[in-house]
Each structure stands twice: as C-alpha cells, then as structure tokens.
C-alpha cells in the first residue's frame, strides 16, 4: 500500500504530540483520518465512474474531494503545529 505525504506527516506529528503530551492533537488526528480516506477513495473520485444514483455519486465525490483537500492543506498545518511545539 502506497502512503501519501499527508498520512506520513500527520502520523509523525500525532506520535510526537502524544509522546510529548502537546496540545491541539486533534489537528494531526483529523488530517490522518482525512489522508487515509483520501488514499482509498482518490482513484474513484478522479475517475469517470458514477453509480446508478448519479446525483448522489456526484455529491459523494464532492465530499470526498473536500476531504482530500483538507488532507492536503492539513499536512502544512501539521508542520506549522510541530514548529510551534518545538519553538514554544
């Protein structure tokens, strides 16, 4: 299974946050969950495949695209958070 960068960054940040008992753990945790969801659904979201309920499929694709977007932005948030933990 190929991991994406958001999973790696969020995972490392989460472990560091838990081990060193840092605040705002929910940030890497939610990014990790979003990254895992994105990893398994990206191929379907970007494909032309739609289910028999077309509008529901499109809505689901929009939700999953937003989750992927959150995972992408979240990895930068994790880096910023890790920097805050180190320098504060």
């Amino acid at each position, binding site marked *: 299974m190929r991991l994406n960068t958001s999973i790696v960054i969020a995972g490392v940040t989460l472990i560091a946050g838990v081990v060193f008992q840092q605040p705002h753990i929910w940030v890497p945790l939610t990014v990790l969950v979003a990254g895992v969801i994105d990893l398994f659904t990206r191929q379907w*979201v*970007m*494909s*032309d495949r*739609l289910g028999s309920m*077309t*509008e529901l499929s*499109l809505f689901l*694709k*929009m939700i999953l*695209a*937003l989750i*992927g*977007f959150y995972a*992408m*932005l979240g990895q930068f948030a994790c880096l910023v958070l890790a920097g805050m933990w180190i320098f504060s």
Partner: protein
Amino acid sequence: MLDIAIYILLALAIFVVIFLGPYAGKMQASTLWVGKRIAPEGMDQEAPRGFQDAITPKHQDTMNTFLPISYVLILVLGTIKAWYLGVLLLVLAIVLMSIAQRFYPQGLNTYLRAIIAAMVNKMADYKKAGDEMRTDAAAEMLQRLNDLYIEVHDQNLPVPSIRDTQRMPLSGKTP
C-alpha cells in the same frame, strides 16, 4: 451575539465557495461545451450558447444562484469586521477554490453523465405533468446527448475551459 452570527455566516459562505465553486465551474464549462456541441451549425446568431440553457441541470442553476450570493456575503460581512478583511477573505476563498478544483473529477464524461441523468429526470417530470410538447423536446435533447456520449466517452476528454469553449463554433469538434 451579532459578532458570532457574522462569523458563522462568513464561515458558511467561504465553505460554500470552496465546496460548490469547483464543481459549479466545471459543470458550467461542460454544459456550455455540450450545449454548443449538440447544437446544429449556423445557429450562432440566434443561440450563441447553443442548447446550454436547455440541458443545464436544476442543481446547477441553484449553485449559480448561491455562489454569487456567497461572494457578496464574504465581501460585505468581512468588510463589516475590518475594512481589509472582506477583500482578503474573498481572495483567500478564490485561491482555496482554485486549489480544491484539482481534487474534483477532471474528465468531461463525469459531467456529461450527470447532464444526461438530469435530462432523464426532467423528461420524466414533464411526462408526469402531461406536458407532451416539453416531453418531446426533452426526448430530442436526450437523444442528442446520448449520441454525443457514445461519440466522446472513449476519448477521455478533460473538462474544457470556459474561454476555449466560448470561442468554439456551434457543433465544433474541438473542446
């Protein structure tokens, strides 16, 4: 209390722009391209957008209403909080929307299938209402859409840009 309401509305408006904007943009370009592609040649003066209006799904019309309202809300509510915040948040929302666009389906087939599904529903509604004339018109549109889908679905075309599509002649062959 009013402050909280303003912030909630601002967050909602930004969410609407980031969530609906990319889909609405791609669907708008797709309906224009498909509408021009299925229109007969030589109608450029009478119908410069081809059959776009006839094939646009209802939910797209709803999005086209909500999106400009969201832009105005961001600008007005942001400006109420601080003179620079309205413009800043609007620019931020548009930048985030263009980044989020990369996560949405890029192929024209997805949007073409959604247009066909919406047209099938539209035809069923007309049939249920006993509107024979509109049912026949919808059936003809559906036939044209299905023919186009058969023609292009193997080509895996990307969603064309609005600018390219605007320059395209009716029944043009290039996206």
